[in-house]
């Protein structure tokens, strides 16, 4: 009897301990719902030791940044992974760069002009040095672009460039031709995939280039401990604003909970991928601060229009009406840290059509449309998606919502590589995805999503093929006048909206967490953050 009692007490002690452990982890802070977005605008090049608001600059000049996965290489011709592009942004430069209004401005190219419909001239900055001391010349630019054609991952980016005609007129002048009038050329040149590499270094390294990158950027590569971290340090000979920090270490921490705990316990100074569920706490904690920015990213459900069940646009519209997008956005993406999505074009982007008629949450209308399309008794659809907790929530919500309209949703959570292959092969009936506009401009983004020519590419999950939409998209690409183009972009959104190939769910914000003594960090829509102006205060 005594033994049973002592064992019972031990059991209770353990349970209490476990609960206490778990509970102490939960913050006592009440999240502040109406918080101001804490966007720090920097005072660049601040070499004074005291800031205007009385803060004393710290001597700390190293920063540790947590990222979620390791890039395969830092070759701009490689694939697009946002962390990879971010580091390439620090190490390399491009000919042009987006300013805060998302207009391409001078970077490595000091000035440029369009000579005719197909020809452009770029005048390079003189005296720009690569990290190995060699000077950047026009020949490097020509080499950087020409090699993109040979890599499967970068070839689509340069499809509109006439690379045979690309030439270095002299050491600091590049003549670039396009195959047809291309409205997005300047935007393309801002993309990290078009970074300028050193011809000698890359041709010597051959296939293996990318583990020891050499660029012209504000930071130079120092070391790479595979699977663990990448270290870069300040380029003191940078042609632009020399960075304030000396060293940045990027630590690879795949587990989201670990990244947040590391930020809050001071193990890292910045977490580039804060999840929406942690954002409130990071914002309100005195030890940390939250940066947020709107992005071009859109989360959506795509209907595969090539599959029988979704061939008819009435069916797609019915599904849309059966979906309560607001509650989905609130539960899955959190209302505070995402923007409502009424169109694939995100808020703040030029050409966004604010007046599209939303598909209201209307179960009766959904049932009616389904009946009109020939499914009076409902329909069964398979949902293939990447198995993670956010998508699971989305799937469960859809399953529950749609059964009211007679739609039976069969869930098929799939492992990452299997999913990508299945989606690329067009096997899905509907899927969930999130995509960003690589070139920022909606004209290019919408082309990648909805043009028939792009139907078999991975960005076109709905495989929509509509000749009217195609015609308009084709026109947009060759219209260089921005105002005319924006109007056409607005028009094509109306057509697309009518076709309902997607259900737009949300525009998630970019969320970055940092320790509270960090200053000088700017958020940008492209999420290609610069670290030049970052510094610490006491």
């Amino acid at each position, binding site marked *: 009897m005594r033994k049973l009692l002592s064992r019972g007490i*031990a059991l209770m002690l353990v349970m209490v301990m476990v609960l206490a452990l778990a509970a102490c982890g939960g913050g006592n802070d009440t999240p502040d719902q109406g918080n101001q977005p804490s966007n720090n605008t920097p005072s660049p090049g601040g070499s004074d030791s005291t800031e205007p608001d009385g803060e004393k600059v710290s001597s700390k000049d190293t920063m540790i940044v947590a990222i979620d996965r390791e890039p395969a290489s830092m070759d701009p011709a490689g694939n697009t992974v946002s962390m990879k592009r971010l580091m390439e942004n620090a190490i390399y430069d491009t000919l042009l760069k987006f300013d805060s209004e998302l207009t391409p401005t001078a970077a490595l190219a000091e000035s440029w002009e369009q000579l005719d419909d197909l020809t452009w001239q770029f005048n390079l900055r003189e005296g720009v040095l690569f990290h190995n001391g060699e000077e950047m010349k026009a020949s490097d630019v020509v080499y950087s672009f020409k090699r993109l054609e040979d890599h499967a991952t970068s070839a689509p980016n340069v499809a509109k460039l006439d690379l045979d005609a690309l030439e270095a007129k002299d050491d600091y002048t590049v003549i670039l031709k396009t195959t047809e009038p291309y409205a997005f050329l300047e935007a393309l040149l801002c993309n990290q995939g078009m970074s300028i590499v050193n011809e000698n270094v890359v041709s010597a390294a051959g296939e293996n280039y990318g583990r020891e990158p050499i660029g012209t950027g504000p930071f130079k590569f120092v070391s790479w401990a595979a699977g663990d971290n990448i270290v870069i340090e300040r380029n003191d000979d940078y042609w632009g604003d020399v960075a304030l920090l000396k060293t940045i270490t990027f630590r690879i921490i*795949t587990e989201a*909970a670990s990244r947040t705990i590391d930020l809050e316990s001071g193990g890292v100074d910045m977490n580039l991928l804060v999840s929406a569920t942690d954002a409130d706490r990071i914002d309100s904690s005195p030890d940390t601060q939250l940066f947020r920015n709107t992005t071009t990213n859109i989360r959506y459900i795509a209907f595969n229009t090539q599959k029988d069940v979704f061939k008819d646009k009435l069916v797609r519209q019915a599904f849309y009406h059966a979906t309560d997008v607001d509650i989905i956005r609130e539960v899955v993406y959190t209302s505070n840290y995402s923007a409502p999505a009424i169109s694939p074009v995100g808020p703040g982007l030029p050409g966004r059509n604010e007046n599209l008629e939303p598909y209201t949450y209307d179960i009766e209308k959904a049932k009616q449309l389904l009946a009109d399309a020939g499914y009076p008794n409902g329909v069964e659809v398979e949902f293939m998606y990447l198995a993670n907790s956010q998508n699971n929530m989305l799937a469960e919500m859809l399953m529950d919502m749609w059964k009211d309209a007679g739609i039976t949703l069969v869930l098929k959570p799939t492992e990452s590589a*299997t999913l990508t292959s299945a989606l*690329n092969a067009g096997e899905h009936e509907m899927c969930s995805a999130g995509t960003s506009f690589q070139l920022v401009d909606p004209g290019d983004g919408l082309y990648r999503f909805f043009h028939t020519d792009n139907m078999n590419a991975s960005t076109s999950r709905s495989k929509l093929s509509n000749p009217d939409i195609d015609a308009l998209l084709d026109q947009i690409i060759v219209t260089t006048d921005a105002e005319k183009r924006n109007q056409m972009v607005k028009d094509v959104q109306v057509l697309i909206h009518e076709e309902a190939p997607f259900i737009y769910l949300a525009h998630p914000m970019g969320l970055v967490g940092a320790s509270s003594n960090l200053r000088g960090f700017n958020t940008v829509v492209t999420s290609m953050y610069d670290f030049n102006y970052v510094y610490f205060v006491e």
Partner: protein
Amino acid sequence: MTKYILRRILMMIPVMMGVTLVVFTLLYITPGDPVDALLGDEATPEAAEQLREELGLNGGYFTRYFTYVGNLLKGDLGICYSTKQPVMDRIASAFPNTMKLAGLSLAIAVITGMLMGTISAIKQNSIFDHVAMFFAMVGNAMPNFWQGLLLMLVFALNWRLLPASGFTTWRHMILPAITMGTSSAAALARMTRSSMLEVIRQDYIDTARAKGQSELRVTIDHALKNALIPVVTTIGMQLGRQLGGAVLTESIFAVPGLGRLMVDAIRARNYPVVQSGVLVIALVFSVVNLLVDILYAYIDPRIGARYE
């Protein structure tokens, strides 16, 4: 004895071949193309075909398997699909980390487990016995990923005693090692206790006591040594568990080890890395088993005699 060792080493060869065959076959039938995983957003059918050619993925089952084995025998472990680095380098940098972690966690498990088990056996049915065995069983029952996160919360965040993740200093090793070690500690404690109990009752213990040796001497000299056999078996088996437990623990604590490398590689369909990585792990496991068997021979010469 040497003949036995040689025979065992020879038998490892077909087992290792078996491992490569099983892993290769599993990967072969797994849907999901590494090419799609590599191309990401830029996937077009033409790009995919081009990459497939480059990576040599167009051969049939036997062609690809024999190419792999052929290269393996030449010492070429292949090239990692994503980084284009030799697989050997990737594994060589990840392997020591996992070994250090597994070693430390096994040490923690052995020391705490055997200590708890021995004391429990000596003081059988006391409060200590019951509480210790209970904690041991709880440790065994707790999912290690949950345990890892809780430890991280308490020690890294609330008490700021230890770093949350990474693997640079010795202090980084503590939390992951404890996470991995506790479940094995439990198994060892129970095994030590029961085999000690069995041995303590044997007649020769009473003889030793009758001869007047101190209680401690009796314990160490006779009881422990004879109890060691099943315990050593358990240690050998727990190493297999450590290598497995490392997979989740390394992900949570951001340890750049072999376990995490394997999971990421399977996800990305990075075939060369998976095939060679699992082979390395299997090799280590087999070698450790062999060492355990040799250890038996030293502990108990009667077993050693059986090896001839």
